[in-house]
């Protein structure tokens, strides 16, 4: 484990910040005392089980719940017909044609993917609820199925949503610079017929769930749930349920992993709410693994068709153009934002100035796509990394030199991309050198020979990515000009209680990102007290007055928005504490310092008030003050500096910070079976100032593991009939201890000039592992007919296919240009 740091000034003097402070969350979690949603019980609660569609596309002719209702112990049922009466369709982010889509909590009239909830049953036990669900008789008329997004765009393809007039949900041409000029001046043009980014997600170990209570007196629902973005859920649910947002109280303590996959559970939550009201009892729902695989938040599957890359003789890459088909699955739950978020990283880490993407998003009879770690950018970054490696492969450039030459250079920072995004800071070439050093790049050729002597094909690959953090929600206006979202925000409150406890409340819903710990580190440094003296409330409660419209934990932003809010609120409290101390000591506020748990006169440390005294005065001992003592209670809303993007040019800064990751790996392929092993792996990460390096490294490791899984094992694969072939952990293999390679990590810190603490969001990573494994396989297979790697997911049998038939992949790439013509 190497850690290298470059010089970097931070806006905060380092005390606890920058230290590997042990996590506050850990004590309860290692003792099994965490509180996850399924752990919460209420008197008389009923268990909900969804009746799910066995068909990928069918008309619902009738639903008969009578047999289920007759089963003793069954409390009640809910069907799509009731939902259509009791609620309005969910608000759609999309403009036309996707905007016309009608999406409800349960299927209304039609089912569009296997596993879609068509009815719900509530009973006195989990087992009984499932028994009853089996007794719900649904009569279906099967319809033709389309599972390939390219086919769903063809004339005559089965139409999923008639109201959309076809299967297209969003279409837009994204073009910057002068693409035609770039190609006219190119010495070489590399053409790739099709590249495919596969469908998978992060499969958090804890499944979705909720415990919903309805208060008949106040008409309010309390929704204890592991939804990771209540701010989004509430704006989806409240209008659909025809109630005000304050009628929906969201409560969470611990969440067992989210990775974006727990953002779009709002349809199930609505079903729970309706049943809690209908049955007048608490309703508990916990999803099962197969339910999740079949229905929840798949990552966007994406095709890049007829790609062309313009390259100069010296290896300068001047532009690319491609036709993108994005597969949204059966419904738009957060989409088509995936159709725009990639543009935060349009040129990847490279200096491309001329870019054209003709982007079409289509629906298919598969599970709806929603955010997944690296949301939408990962697909695009895989594409940019693929074309860089294919250009090198086909034109004979050195992959390392080609990157070094085409990377955005440190002296260009902050760098404005062709579409107006601003890369805040970073030193990509230095990071590349570091990762090459970690993996022992200079020994690769020796190792290749040594492996060959064992009958193995060795390959080396690089994946260089950006993790763009802190969304400018104004980007949503690029897919729907009528939307009134822009900017971003997060809230924190900090108070000093009567006995001097410092209590911090966050608006976020962490799923392992250690917010309780890092928030306490920031607070302790500002208030000059011990990190253990800072109590950060676990979890989230929308009644705590510490949330805003964008509150939640998603899109790599806590280190900027969350800690920005914590810093702001703590500085307000510090000012109140100094003011109060100066009132007590009859001295100017400037003379007061906060240190060692005291407010004291800087040059007379004897004159010191413990925090307890400061807390007691406004709370319980406030008589006799000529003016009101400050309340020792501060609420701060952090708002990142954003403008609304230019909708015509699709131009503007879509995100605040850009963490950078460069991953490199070495694989060994068994040429007889296609089985391969990652024998060496290194990752360099730059997320600016690290509040807690060990926690940062933990996120890097997690993102790496997800990428390795996606590259080698994890895929939501469907057959032509719309069956998900990997509906459980038997067939959807999640890597375990024995599957993980040796890993070396290192960090570089180039503080962000744009954020309160010099931090950058970094939780998601950019799928670097997928990209470097694809590259390493392509490198390894040079020896066997030089196929190019055109899929993000390469299980053994696909590698075997490349080994046996390299010509199939060769046929997908062509080089033209002056020399050729």
């Amino acid at each position: 484990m190497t850690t290298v740091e470059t010089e970097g000034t931070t806006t905060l003097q380092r005390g606890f910040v920058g230290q590997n402070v042990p996590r506050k969350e850990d004590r309860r979690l290692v003792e099994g005392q965490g509180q996850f949603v399924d752990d919460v019980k209420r008197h008389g609660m009923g268990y909900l089980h969804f009746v799910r569609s066995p068909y990928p596309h069918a008309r619902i002719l009738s639903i008969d719940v009578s047999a289920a209702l007759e089963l003793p112990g069954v409390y009640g049922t809910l069907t799509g017909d009731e939902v259509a009466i009791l609620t309005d369709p969910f608000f759609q982010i999309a403009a036309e044609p996707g905007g016309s889509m009608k999406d409800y909590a349960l299927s209304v009239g039609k089912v569009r993917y296997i596993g879609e909830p068509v009815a719900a049953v509530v009973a006195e036990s989990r087992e009984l609820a499932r028994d009853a669900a089996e007794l719900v008789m649904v009569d279906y008329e099967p319809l033709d199925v389309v599972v390939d997004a390219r086919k769903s765009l063809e004339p005559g393809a089965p139409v999923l949503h008639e109201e959309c007039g076809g299967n297209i949900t969003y279409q837009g041409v994204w073009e910057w610079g002068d693409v035609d000029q770039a190609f006219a001046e190119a010495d070489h043009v590399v053409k790739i017929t099709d590249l495919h980014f596969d469908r998978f997600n992060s499969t958090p170990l804890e499944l979705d769930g909720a415990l919903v209570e309805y208060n008949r007196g106040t008409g309010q629902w309390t929704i204890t749930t592991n939804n990771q973005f209540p701010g989004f859920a509430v704006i989806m649910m409240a209008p659909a349920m025809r109630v005000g947002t304050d009628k929906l109280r969201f409560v969470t303590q611990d969440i067992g992993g989210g990775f974006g996959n727990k953002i779009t559970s709002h349809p199930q939550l609505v079903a729970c709410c309706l049943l809690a009201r209908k049955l007048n009892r608490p309703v508990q729902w916990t999803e099962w693994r197969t339910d999740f695989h079949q229905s929840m938040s798949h990552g966007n599957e994406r095709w890049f068709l007829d790609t062309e890359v313009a390259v100069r003789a010296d290896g300068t890459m001047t532009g690319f153009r491609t036709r993108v088909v994005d597969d949204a699955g059966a419904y738009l739950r957060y989409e088509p934002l995936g159709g725009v978020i990639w543009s935060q990283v349009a040129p990847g880490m490279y200096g491309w100035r001329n870019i054209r993407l003709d982007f079409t998003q289509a629906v298919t009879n598969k599970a709806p796509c929603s955010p997944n770690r690296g949301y939408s950018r990962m697909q695009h970054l895989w594409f940019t990394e693929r074309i860089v490696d294919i250009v090198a492969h086909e034109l004979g450039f050195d992959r390392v030199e080609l990157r070094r030459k085409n990377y955005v250079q440190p002296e260009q920072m902050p760098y404005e991309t062709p579409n107006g995004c601003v890369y805040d800071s970073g030193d990509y070439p230095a990071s590349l050198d570091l990762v090459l050093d970690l993996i022992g790049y200079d020994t690769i050729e020796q190792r290749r020979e040594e492996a060959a002597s064992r009958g193995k094909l060795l390959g080396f690959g690089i994946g260089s990515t950006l993790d763009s953090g802190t969304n400018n929600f104004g980007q949503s206006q690029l897919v729907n000009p009528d939307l009134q979202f822009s900017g971003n925000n997060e809230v924190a409150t900090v108070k000093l209680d009567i006995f001097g406890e410092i209590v911090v409340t966050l608006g976020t819903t962490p799923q392992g990102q250690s917010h309780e710990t890092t928030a306490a580190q920031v607070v302790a440094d500002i208030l000059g007290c011990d990190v253990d003296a800072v109590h950060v409330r676990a979890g989230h409660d929308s009644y705590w007055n510490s949330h805003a419209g964008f509150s939640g934990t998603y899109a790599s932003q806590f280190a900027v928005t969350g800690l920005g809010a914590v810093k702001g609120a703590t500085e307000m409290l510090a000012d109140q504490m100094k003011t109060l101390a100066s009132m007590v000591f009859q001295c100017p506020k400037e003379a007061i310092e906060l240190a060692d748990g005291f407010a004291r006169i800087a040059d007379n440390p004897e004159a010191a008030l413990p925090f307890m005294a400061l807390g007691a005065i406004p709370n319980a001992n406030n008589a006799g003050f000529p003016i009101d003592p400050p309340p020792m209670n501060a609420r701060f809303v952090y708002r990142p500096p954003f403008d609304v993007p230019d909708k015509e040019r699709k131009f503007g800064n879509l995100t605040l910070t850009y963490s950078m990751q460069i991953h490199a790996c070495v694989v060994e392929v068994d040429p007889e079976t296609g089985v391969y092993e990652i024998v060496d792996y290194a990752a360099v990460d730059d997320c600016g100032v690290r509040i807690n390096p060990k926690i940062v490294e933990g996120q890097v490791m997690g993102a790496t593991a997800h990428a390795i899984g996606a590259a080698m094992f994890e895929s939501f694969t469907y057959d032509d009939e719309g069956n998900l072939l990997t509906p459980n952990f038997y067939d959807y293999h999640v890597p375990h201890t024995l599957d993980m390679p040796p890993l070396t990590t290192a960090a570089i810190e180039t503080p962000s000039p744009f954020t309160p603490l010099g931090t950058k969001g970094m939780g998601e990573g950019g799928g670097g592992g997928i990209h470097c494994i694809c590259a390493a396989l392509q490198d390894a297979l040079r020896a066997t007919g030089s196929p190019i790697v055109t899929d993000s997911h390469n299980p053994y049998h696909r590698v075997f296919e490349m080994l046996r038939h390299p010509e199939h992949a060769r046929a997908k790439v062509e080089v033209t240009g002056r020399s050729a013509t």
Partner: protein
Amino acid sequence: MSALPSTSMFVDVRVNGERYEREVPARRLLVHFLRDDLDLTGTHIGCDTGSCGACTVHLDGVPVKSCSVLAVQAHGASITTVEGLAGDEQTPLQRAFSEHHALQCGYCTPGMIMSATALLEQNPTPTEDEVKVALQGNICRCTGYWNIVEAVMAAGKGSA
């Protein structure tokens, strides 16, 4: 226990040293018995196929997946769950998990710790490979396992 088939059975088990006697449906899995009937919610559920190990408990001293055992099969047995590990003090392994940042969301952690505890009981100073084999039946989606293996090694060395 009756040799005649029945859909409901009287179950007498010791869990974390405490004796419980309950009438339990034959079809109820041990994990649901622990979580729902005994309110021992530290044992988690992450899959539906016995693949993830989040529900690992010790059944008569041996780590098993409580989602692949019927509650009635545990009749007469002695069970330890994650709640039964720490007394007034956490175990060295629990401390090592925290010190080595071997957990993030903490959902797989109870199962991981139960598997690792069983390993260290038989083999106090395991090699890295022995640790990996012992934890292979436990899925973690947050950490990539590197820090978990490191933590178990450290606890093994007693350096935690």
